[in-house]
């Protein structure tokens, strides 16, 4: 049963980290997209 503890740890850490990274990517993506839209729409006005 101890063995499943290691398996759980491995799978847990791996997918946890991947999800965190995915979250980080999404955040950066949205930030960049927002900034880009802002700059593009600004251009129309100037």
């Amino acid at each position, binding site marked *: 049963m101890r063995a499943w503890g*290691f398996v759980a740890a491995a*799978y847990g850490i*791996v997918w946890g*980290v991947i999800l965190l990274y995915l979250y980080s990517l999404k955040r950066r993506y949205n930030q960049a997209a927002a900034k*880009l839209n802002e*700059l*593009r729409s600004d251009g129309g006005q100037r």
Partner: protein
Amino acid sequence: MAKQLQPAHNRKGILGALALVAVAVGLYWSLVVAPPDAYQGEVQRIMYLHLPSILIAYLSYFLVFIGSGLYLWKREKRDDILAHAAAEIGVLFTALTIIEGSIWGRPTWGVWWTWDARLTLTAILLLIYVGYLMLRSLIEDENRAATAAAVLGIIGFLDIPLIHMSVYWWRTLHQPPSILRPDKLPWENVHPSMLTALTISFVGFLLLYFYLLSLRYRIGEMRQEIQALRLKRGA
């Protein structure tokens, strides 16, 4: 403007969904369907993470190499963006590979770390590409940073076979006469569903990788465009 993004956005969405499905099926196969190993027991299931992880890492570094080479040759920004994105995700998967290897090693060999060829190699890989990322962040000028990184991306990749050879020779020539022979995967009597689990997991990781890469690449592209727009505005 938003309409322009839609097709690419949709493709990414489909890729992401496919990845999710493959990963889920892979998880089910790895944890439920495949039987425990005759020698290693349940712990062997970690291999369904470990092997795909390291393969993905190598794939990533190959892409860094290609991107770096193309960038030095043609100086097109998109190759640099690809190299940077691939390096970042490569480092992620390399770190995961080491963690998985370590967790697998504890019940198998009794230790959290050993200087066997595989783990050592993976650690060196991590050092090289973390160095790549640090190099990029420490150089102010964008173009210089891209050039410097490209050189490291090429040289680093060329060095990998040499590092492989030297570390493997080192470890096999100095093998301590004990039960700890961690270079070999004790895969006896491979049950077919184990191979299936491995394959599905690998496919899942691969799809996930390209999904992450496409996101990270797009972020790089957007940043590039943001910079260009800012320059035009004189901001």
